[in-house]
């Protein structure tokens, strides 16, 4: 069965510092991996995805994520945090050849401190 774990409920980072939001996954075969962001009173917005190829994926708003197959991780990163990055971040996984569903993690609330 597919699963996603986001071990941190909340991450606090000072503005200008690098940030990392952690995600690990479990899936049979090669995964499709996603990060979504949710701003207050909004729906989830797609940030980036890993399908195949380069392990470092670049996405919207300066975010990137690194796929690590041996550690089954897909951590979200940004070199320099902005206050406007404060939001709820969801990691998600699906598998090729399976059904259309995406399995979402519980979410990590990111607070960027001015």
């Amino acid at each position, binding site marked *: 069965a597919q699963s996603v774990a986001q071990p941190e409920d909340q991450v606090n980072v000072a503005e200008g510092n690098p940030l990392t939001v952690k995600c690990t996954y479990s899936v049979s075969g090669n995964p499709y991996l996603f990060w979504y962001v949710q701003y207050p009173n909004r729906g989830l917005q797609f940030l980036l995805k890993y399908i195949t190829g380069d392990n470092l994926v670049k996405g919207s708003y300066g975010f990137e994520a690194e796929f690590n197959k041996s550690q089954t991780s897909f951590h979200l990163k940004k070199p320099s945090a902005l206050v406007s990055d404060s939001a709820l971040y969801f990691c998600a996984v*699906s598998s090729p050849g399976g059904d259309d569903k*995406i399995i979402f993690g519980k*979410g990590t609330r990111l607070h960027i401190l001015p």
Partner: protein
Amino acid sequence: DARVTQTPRHKVTEMGQEVTMRCQPILGHNTVFWYRQTMMQGLELLAYFRNRAPLDDSGMPKDRFSAEMPDATLATLKIQPSEPRDSAVYFCASGLSGGFYNEQFFGPGTRLTVL
């Protein structure tokens, strides 16, 4: 700019009343998902359609919830009768089966408050 639309955006109702939430998926998409988001439970999948056929509604309380797709441009989620514990934000998402690597596109949500 193709987007998933949901109506109403906010709904306040009294316990026992029927609630209907509507979703218009992105034109050309053939999968529709209904999610419920609460502080306690996070994001829960309620139901999932492909080509208008329900494929999975195991996350939905069957006695009071129902989900349908009357046509390819409309998905509905009904609660009858509503209860205070149904208070949550309900999201619809659409996608293209076999396309976009299962990426889903979310609507803005319906915030439901049951008094």
